[in-house]
């Protein structure tokens, strides 16, 4: 009798845990279901490796406007802006920002659904003076624009 009772409790407890876990997993899952993180590209430790993981070698495209400071006093906080002229380069679905000399060159990648302006502003760490790349994916093709930023103080200090 007692064993049955104990079994009932443990099963109920297990079900409750399962429900909590399912709720916790389901909440972000709903938002993130459509997107897959480009793990290989984030794990790459060299620029060409990261570019290869994103896709083909990108072509330079004037429709991408990539704004970074010429000189960054603090490499830990370098503002970058990627803007794409939708008439010059339509159907951009993804924008990535790469920093050539960082331990992992890919800093950030953004999925852009139709209807959203291709306009991304953020701040990244830049380990040392090097070239920054903005890569845009449109209709399966990769396009890029690059800018050199001089860093007078390292970005590795966080």
């Amino acid at each position, binding site marked *: 009798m007692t064993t049955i009772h104990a079994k009932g409790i443990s099963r109920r407890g297990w079900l409750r845990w399962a429900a909590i876990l399912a709720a916790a997993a389901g909440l*972000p899952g709903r*938002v*993130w279901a*459509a*997107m897959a*993180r*480009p793990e290989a590209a*984030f794990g790459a430790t060299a620029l060409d490796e990261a570019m290869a993981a994103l896709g083909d070698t990108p072509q330079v495209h004037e429709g991408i406007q990539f704004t970074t400071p010429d000189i960054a006093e603090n490499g*830990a*906080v*370098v*503002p970058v*802006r990627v803007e794409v002229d939708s008439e010059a380069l339509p159907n951009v679905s993804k924008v990535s920002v790469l*920093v050539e000399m*960082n*331990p*992992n060159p*890919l*800093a*950030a*990648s*953004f*999925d*852009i*659904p139709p*209807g*959203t*302006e291709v*306009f*991304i*502003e*953020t*701040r*990244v*760490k830049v380990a040392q003076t090097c070239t920054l790349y903005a890569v845009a994916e449109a209709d399966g093709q990769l396009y890029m624009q690059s800018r050199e930023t001089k860093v007078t103080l390292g970005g*590795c*200090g*966080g």
Partner: protein
Amino acid sequence: MAGRIKIRAQKKGVVTEVKALMRHPMETGMRKDQAGEPIPAHFITQVSVLHGEQPVMQGHWGAAVSANPFLGVRFAGGEPGDTVRVVWTDNQGGTGEGETTIR
């Protein structure tokens, strides 16, 4: 750990401009503390901007995004009074969320 987000959404002509400032250490995992012990990596891996329930931008971040990250995006549509949310998840399972209405 749930982080708060400072967020502002403003209608500018046909587009809505969203600016968000998150509080997060964004540790790369490559730094060491004063005792020489490595500081574990702790950074936002996913960030999403939603207009109502509709995602307008979904981002994947690496540790190279600056501490206390700033994010600015623009999307077409959106009316004053609409809800805009920014949600993030980090590599240690932490989440953060901020909500505002379009001005």
